[in-house]
């Protein structure tokens, strides 16, 4: 079985100051579209029209991706909390059925 060595990229390959490419600008635009639909508290304060470099785009991409996930996570947590509070406790079930603790015990 052949084991093939994979060359590492040049140390110069990394350049967050590289001018942002059209693909990343499109991704920023899509994220901005999504960000506008987020509740205010999740929105960033990054001015996307001023993004010039890949590093600047990366920062915005991370912030909005995390915000989208946080907004959904919080909504899910609230949904679970609301479901929990609606879930009848054994005593309230007994009350609805007209059964007091005493009658439960008697039974």
């Amino acid at each position, binding site marked *: 079985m052949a084991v093939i*060595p994979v*060359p590492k990229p040049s140390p110069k390959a990394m350049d967050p100051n*590289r001018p942002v490419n059209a*693909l990343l600008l499109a991704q920023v635009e899509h994220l901005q579209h999504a960000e506008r639909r987020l509740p205010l508290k999740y929105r960033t304060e990054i001015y996307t029209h001023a993004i010039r470099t890949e590093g600047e785009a*990366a920062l915005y991409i991370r912030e909005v*991706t995390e915000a989208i996930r946080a907004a959904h996570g919080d909504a899910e947590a609230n949904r679970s909390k609301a479901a929990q509070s609606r879930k009848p406790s054994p005593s309230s079930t007994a009350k609805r059925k007209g059964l007091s603790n005493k009658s439960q015990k008697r039974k």
Partner: protein
Amino acid sequence: MSEGLNQLKHIVVLMMENRSFDHMLGSLSAVDPRIDGVTGQFTNPDTTGAAIKPQPSADFQGQLDPDPDHHFPAVDLQIFGGDPARVANMQGFIKSYFNQRRDVAHSQKIMYYFTQANLPVLTTLALEFAVFNRWFASIPGPTICNRAFAHYGTSFGRVDMNPFDVIEPFKSIYTRLINNAPQHTAKVYYYDTTSSTMEVVNLLQNQPQLFGTYLQFQEDCASGNLPDYSFVEPNYNDHETDSGEEVASDQHPDHDVQAGEQFIAEVYMRIRSNPRLWASTALLVVYDEHGGIFDHVPPPACTPDKFSAPANSTGTGMAFNFDRLGVRVPAILISPWIPKNTVVSDRVFDHASIPATIAKFFSCDDFQISPREAAADVFIEPNSANVDPARNLLSLDVMRNDCPEFSM
């Protein structure tokens, strides 16, 4: 019945960025003439009228700057060469690149391709498993609309990079899988939150639970908990993390091609290193579109989609009915059940083949699909008693034990 199809439980698609078939795999025609790569016969005219041949001079980085234009009008010029009769002659690549810098010598670099030695990962996988001679981008246009075909089997009439809306009744392949009876599992693994996904507006925004990170992909491979279907996205940008520098691995010009080689090898080895997963997984490595870089095969006509792009949205002054494929891209199907050195020559594929294959293999039959997806060929046959052996690529009776490994 095929033992490879019997064993197959997971399909993984890794979609890279913006490189043409000839640019990445064209050198292999010298190794195996069945591979339809570069020969001395092809040329493109430069703006002085000189006929320029492809050269094995591609660099990993710094050569294709500015990023070659691959929006719809530029790709139209690349395919038709400005021919008023609109014959797809693949003669417009240098003309198109010249338009960006107006430098004759620089424009010729669009004809450069990599040697086999330069791309040890991609070329090894192509020679060891199944390489497709006729896998085309779905649209002669840019990334977002082409990736839409991989997710939905259509781009809903878009040929550009703008946000688009999913139009009912067509659903993503992920929604189809998780809503199917029986239910299947599916995940999109983006590299990390700083790289994120290229399908923000419909998938990430509305269904973030579909997404995981590449770290989670690594863990899922190790634990054997990979979903039935995984779509892996490379790192789209250079960024710092707590653990150090993350170099973009998508191979989009002008990102480093070797970083992408390393990422492809990583994904392969994650699957390869878990023996049970390796035996039950097929990995497709494919590129979303050609990125404006030379390829010699004219994209064929295809079944029109339900949608069309009006003349005022294409940039060519002509409407587009999604009745022609985009430029050819590298595509390799990997599994230990595929015979070494398989070349798929006589069948045409595009990214609509991805949802078509997944839906058919996992029997998600109760969903409406686009005309393009309905017409798309599948790269993995549905497992049934009457599988056509001539079409089944996972055809070995016994799993191979000679598949390559990569050391990083």
